């Protein structure tokens, strides 16, 4: 029987790994998720097969409660509320670890008969689990707007208090490891960790929350691995450690994508100065995106309209644009180019460039023809154009460009704008398009940006 369990465990975590690999690619993600879920079922079944298992009623009760609570919660949550749901699920995972560690402490009389590394692992799990649980609850509260999204901080007190709490928790742990087996130590440890979790997450602004959730997720993984060491359960070690490792990488990727650094975010939790960055953006937030994301969005569109402008000419990006167009077409995506009558700086500027790059004439669409197609367009890719897409030309009679017909890109499902900065075009005016919720900005020289998108497309 133990051999069977061993094999089932191996199969289970092999499926986790395989599933995770799948989750990193758009084509395989859905399947990857279910493969990992199958792995989980196998792991649970294997555990239940352990010789000498009992307490079946309570086990069934626990699992039952979990299902009754978890399934509807996951089913009903709105798409927009997903991140806080993940925070919550992560939190309860951490809570479970903390609780198990506590029971472990109680049933072993403070690890009196266990090797020291088991005590260390178990207490580590308790500490991290508790922080994760309470920290995640705060994250949930902030995102769900139960708590205010802005940073809540104790100012100067923040940092000393956090340090005191950390020292208290670690102190209790050291005492236990040293052999003191009063349960109060464990309870103080759990409480101190809990308050620490609250205090660290409260000062972090809503914009940084996803990164924090991911970080807590990685921590929970580590705590699970520690618990696995303590319980000598290989499945826990492997799965926990994989989550710990992949979670940290992922946190890093996410922080990079948001132009934030993890130390800065965490420092915020410890009373450092971080909140400013998220503050200034508030009034006119701009969503910036990456070449990889642009590539995914393009690859999963069925209709893409490229809107070239003066910036494409300055960057001399026409050849790269053409290559991108061809790549998309080879994936069965319809691609056209919307040529505004005054795009660029001379009549026919875009034509000259696109002809040079050998874009077929059939794909060049005049403004009047293409404007009716934007509502069916999945992605409008604005490459170095600005004024010719500016809605002020329609809405603002005081604008210098009022009355000019414009390309109606904002009617499409999603708009991606490639330019180097937020600076204005020929007419020298701001463009509201860039601040619309469906718009995201891919900053950089048009030629290099398009080049990167092409590369990403090839890797998809």
């Amino acid at each position, binding site marked *: 029987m133990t051999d069977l369990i061993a094999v089932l465990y191996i199969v289970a975590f092999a499926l986790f790994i395989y599933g995770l690999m799948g989750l990193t690619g758009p084509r395989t993600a859905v399947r990857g998720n279910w493969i990992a879920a199958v792995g989980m079922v196998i792991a649970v079944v294997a555990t239940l097969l352990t010789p000498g298992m009992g307490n079946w009623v309570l086990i069934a009760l626990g699992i039952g409660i979990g299902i009754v609570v978890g399934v509807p919660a996951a089913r009903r949550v709105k798409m927009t509320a997903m991140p806080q749901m993940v925070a919550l699920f992560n939190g309860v995972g951490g809570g479970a670890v903390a609780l198990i560690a506590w029971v472990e402490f109680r049933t072993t009389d403070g690890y009196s008969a266990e090797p020291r590394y088991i005590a260390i692992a178990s207490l580590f799990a308790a500490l991290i689990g508790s922080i994760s649980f309470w920290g995640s609850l705060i994250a949930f509260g902030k995102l769900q707007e139960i708590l205010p999204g802005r940073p809540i901080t104790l100012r100067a007190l923040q940092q000393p208090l956090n340090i005191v709490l950390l020292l208290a928790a670690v102190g209790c742990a050291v005492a236990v490891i040293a052999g003191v087996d009063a349960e109060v130590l464990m309870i103080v440890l759990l409480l101190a960790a809990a308050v620490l979790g609250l205090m660290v997450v409260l000062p972090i602004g809503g914009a940084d929350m996803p990164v924090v959730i991911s970080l807590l997720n990685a921590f929970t993984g580590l705590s699970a691995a520690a618990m696995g060491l303590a319980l000598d359960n290989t499945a826990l070690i492997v799965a926990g450690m994989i989550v710990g490792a992949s979670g940290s990488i992922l946190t890093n990727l996410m922080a990079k994508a948001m132009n934030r650094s993890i130390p800065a975010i965490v420092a915020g939790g410890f009373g450092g100065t971080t909140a400013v960055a998220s503050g200034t953006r508030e009034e006119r937030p701009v969503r910036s995106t990456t070449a990889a994301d642009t590539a995914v969005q393009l690859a999963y569109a069925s209709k893409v309209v490229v809107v070239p402008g003066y910036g494409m000419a300055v960057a*001399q990006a026409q050849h790269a644009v053409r290559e991108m167009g061809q790549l998309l077409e080879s994936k069965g995506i319809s691609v056209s180019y919307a040529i505004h009558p005054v795009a660029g700086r*001379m*009549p026919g500027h875009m034509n000259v460039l696109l002809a*040079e790059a050998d874009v077929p004439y059939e794909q060049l669409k005049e403004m009047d023809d293409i404007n009716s197609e934007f509502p069916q367009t999945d992605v409008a890719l604005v490459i170095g154009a600005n004024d010719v897409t500016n809605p002020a*030309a329609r809405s603002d009679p005081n604008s210098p460009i009022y*009355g000019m017909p414009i390309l109606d890109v904002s009617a499409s499902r999603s708009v991606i704008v490639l330019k180097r900065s937020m600076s204005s075009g020929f007419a020298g005016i701001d463009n509201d398009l860039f601040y619309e919720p469906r718009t995201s900005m891919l900053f950089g020289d048009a030629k290099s940006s398009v080049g990167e998108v092409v590369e990403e497309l090839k890797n998809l």
Partner: protein
Amino acid sequence: MVETVPLSVGVVRESIPDERRVALVPKLVERLVRRGLRVVVEPGAGAGVLLADELFTAAGAELGDAWHADLVLKVSPPTAEEVARLKAGTVLIGFLKPLSDVEGVAALEEAGVTAFAMESIPRITRAQAMDALSSQSSVAGYRAVLLAAERLTRFFPMLTTAAGTVPPAKVLVLGAGVAGLQALATAKRLGARTTGYDVRPEVADQVRSVGAQWLDLGIEAVGEGGYARELTEQERAEQQRRLTEAITQFDVVVTTALVPGRKAPTLVTAEAVRGMPAGGVVVDLAGESGGNCELTEPGRDVVAHDVTICSPLNLAAEMPGHASELYARNVTELVELLVDAEGRLALDFSDEIVAGACVAGRERGES
């Protein structure tokens, strides 16, 4: 003015020799007719563009005395005889050279005509569709390069052949406005190595955006606060010296440098021409304003120092088909601005375009 009868729009036949353009083409006749206007076309108006009268009538126009229409559309400025044919109260639209042909405009004023000059439409974004200077400059820039390629005794593109390698022609464009940029783009297409120059330093990026190099004469004209400052006499001389030196490197020089209402600046000196390779070509698009080249004789081809200097006066008219189409679209946009929803004349002089374009008879128009 006219209340019940629909407004009549006259399309006249151009009388100046070599003016092959026409102010309206059938496609846009249709559009005006749909707006409720009557379009009267002088027989033979489209001959220069090879547009038969039937094509106009098929589009909804009538043939007749276009000169007596309420609104007369022209391309070139009217001659004295033509002004005489206009009845008082007529609204005239066309290129009228308001800055240089002061007498012509005065004559119109005298004749009681309300005249709108296409050149005077303010170059604001909203008026881009009426910007005939741009559309005709595009044609001119393109044609200037064809002309240069025609006259040059050498290839534009590089060719490596069994009988030796032909280097690409070097083309310099002075003045990177609409015509200049179009010329740069066209020459690049034909395979030449292109370089552009302009007094406005901010145009450098635009020159590069058509694949050309920017000719940097190395004179910094940036003064306090980033504003351009007036060049000293010495600097100006130094600039001219360097330009002259630069020009001798090029097989083809196309000049388009204009300063509205003033004599065109002299950029290509006789000395520069002497330095150019034998068989070279200068195409001077500023001929009408005196020319950018010292040796230019407006409207004629001159061969000096083995270099051909062409100065076509009306290059756009040499490609009448598209030139007319684009011009007709510009004019139509203006007509539509002058006419209300019911097809009646409604001159709103509070509109900066209407006010800016009107060069004669404004009071009459306002009445």
